[in-house]
């Protein structure tokens, strides 16, 4: 193992260490939090940025892709807040409760904390860290141990703000909660946000995160959400990495799902120059139904990587994973999915499907579905397909008078629609479909 230790650090790693050292005294949190940050940074520092020889990151060599680390974002000024106002517009018609984070900082005057539904609590993470919120003491960094994942350790070390949400047992939160993360700084910065949502027994809530940044500015975003879903709870989580931003975006979801729960997760990615979207899911109790889906549409030289681990620590859960990737120009789409079924997790019913559609000869898809099964009475499977649009289908449409572009649009819509259909909220489903159509319209000829 000694040989793996690297003594030579990259410029990005060195400046991350400097940023951490300089920020440490100012970052929110009491003694316990300081210790948590310190341990996390040590762990990160020992391994450095992940690179292609780290199996879990082999398609997304962050060390090579991040030549330098951008300075930590400062507090947003009035102009930044003004620029942030239009963020999250894809979801404008959803009547969601918006919580606005500008350059990583919660902005109350742009957020809606009025008339919280009974049983719903929302606090900014910075405040919770500073005040020693017991919810954090119980859960922060503990929901699904990420096993030293470098993105998560770095996030823990440098987390500045985010949302802490609690939905009390039995409560139903009618309005979706929309966490709007927007990077508005005119010069590239690094932003570390961390959120925690605890959905207690039998509660119901829909959480949406959207992430976007100014076009052409190479912000570096590292964001994470820890999600605790109690027994019999019903939670929807949607993540949108959108806009025409050039950010390097690393996102992590860590979700622990209790017995007899319903969980729907949807990731939608069209933005960012480099995106790594990680989902670490653990099923802790029997009888849960989960739908984990995603749609990624890339063009130009965009690179997006969805890496998912679904760990069936308990049996008797049904989980469906469907990930669709549309790749145009010279873009590259990665899907790595692993289903783990622990010994004794009998009657697990888990199926994973990943499909890539290549709209250009120069686009590239890497798909790696895996099963690790240690129980004998299970139904598990996975599939992966990758290919161009079916010429025969295109001809059929064109033979009816539909021009080539429009025929392609219909077929691509159908391709991603398969995943988007899984979004339960009708308004969001329509908004996503409209966005797909707009994306297709904007394609170069």
């Amino acid at each position, binding site marked *: 193992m000694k040989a793996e230790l690297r003594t030579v650090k990259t410029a990005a790693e060195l400046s991350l260490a400097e940023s951490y050292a300089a920020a440490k005294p100012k970052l929110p949190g009491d003694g316990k939090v300081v210790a948590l940050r310190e341990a996390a940074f040590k762990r990160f520092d020992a391994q450095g940025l992940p690179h292609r020889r780290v199996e879990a990151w082999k398609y997304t060599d962050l060390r090579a892709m991040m030549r330098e680390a951008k300075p930590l974002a400062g507090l947003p000024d009035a102009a930044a807040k003004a620029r942030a106002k239009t963020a999250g517009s894809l979801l404008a018609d959803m009547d969601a409760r918006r919580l606005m984070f500008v350059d990583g900082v919660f902005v109350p005057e742009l957020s809606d904390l009025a008339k919280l539904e009974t049983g719903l609590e929302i606090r900014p993470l910075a405040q919770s860290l500073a005040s020693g919120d017991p919810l954090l003491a119980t859960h922060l960094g503990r929901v699904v141990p990420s096993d030293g994942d470098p993105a998560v350790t770095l996030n823990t070390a440098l987390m500045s703000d985010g949302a802490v949400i609690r939905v009390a047992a039995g409560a139903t939160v009618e309005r979706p909660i929309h966490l709007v993360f927007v990077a508005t700084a005119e010069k590239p910065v690094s932003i570390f946000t961390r959120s925690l949502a605890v959905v207690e027994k039998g509660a119901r809530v829909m959480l949406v995160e959207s992430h976007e940044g100014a076009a052409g500015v190479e912000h570096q975003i590292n964001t994470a959400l820890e999600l605790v879903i109690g027994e019999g709870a019903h939670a929807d989580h949607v993540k949108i990495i959108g806009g025409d931003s050039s950010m390097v975006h690393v996102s992590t979801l860590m979700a622990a799902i209790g017995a007899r729960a319903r969980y729907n997760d949807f990731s939608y990615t069209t933005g960012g120059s480099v995106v790594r979207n990680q989902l670490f899911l653990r099923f802790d109790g029997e009888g849960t139904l989960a739908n984990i889906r995603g749609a990624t549409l890339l063009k130009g030289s965009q690179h997006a990587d969805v890496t998912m681990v679904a760990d069936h620590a308990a049996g008797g859960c049904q989980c469906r994973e469907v990930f669709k990737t549309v790749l145009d120009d010279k873009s590259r789409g990665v899907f790595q999915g692993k289903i783990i079924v622990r010994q004794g997790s009998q009657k697990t019913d888990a199926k994973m499907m990943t499909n890539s559609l290549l709209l250009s000869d120069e686009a590239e898809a890497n798909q790696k579905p895996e099963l690790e099964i240690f129980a004998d009475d299970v139904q598990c499977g996975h599939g992966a397909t990758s290919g161009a649009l079916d010429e025969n289908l295109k001809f059929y449409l064109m033979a*009816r008078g539909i021009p080539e572009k429009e025929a392609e649009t219909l077929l691509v819509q*159908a391709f991603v629609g398969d995943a988007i259909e899984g979004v339960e909220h009708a308004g969001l489903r329509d908004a996503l479909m409209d966005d797909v159509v707009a994306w297709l319209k904007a394609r170069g000829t």
Partner: protein
Amino acid sequence: MAMLEIKNLHVKVDGKQILNGLNLTVGKGEVHAIMGPNGSGKSTLAYVMAGKAGYEATDGAILLDGENVLEMQPDERAAKGVFLAFQYPMEIPGVATMTFLRTALNAQRKQRGEAELSTPDFLKLVRDAAGKLEINMDMLRRGVNVGFSGGEKKRNEILQMALLQPRLCVLDETDSGLDIDALKIVSDGVNRLRSPDRSMVVITHYQRLLDHIVPDVVHVLSKGRIVKTGGKELAHELEASGYAQFQDDAA
């Protein structure tokens, strides 16, 4: 002027010569039947008329109202009035049949410089046409041809034809896979579209279809060319004697 004039058509598919100097003239308002053994090139002829990629015309011309369509994209040909009822209609999961019909109809109207149809007008048009073909509206809410039986797919082809009102209809074995009742429904659908301004090329293996859709002219296609042309009685002769004589001729 003939509506369709195919002159000395040579077509290669994957480097293989399939059509070898085919000539065919169909007058305005006429219905021509094309019969011929398996593999003789009937579907190839249908595809090359509709403009399928990979069907390379190495020589000859296909003139629609005197205009060569060989250089046109499939959608342009459709807008000019060419319609192919496929031997094997495609299933397109995720594209609702109604969306498909509407997109097609409006695309053709747009290409011809006509206004798009309003939703109520479109719905009425589809409801009327579907009713005549005994297609229920629930089926049309599904993906294009998804979960349709073989016969339902063929009926759906004729529905499209009825909606798009083409000038030249090419029917490739529309009768295959149809039960007796469906054959009647489909044939009636086709017959309703017969008009002095519309020509049809009906590809079939069976005389039975031609009892319903009575052709003006019958051709025999063998080894990539028309080897015999006659009246509707030719179909009866073929039913009795088979294709052996033509295959020998062409060899």
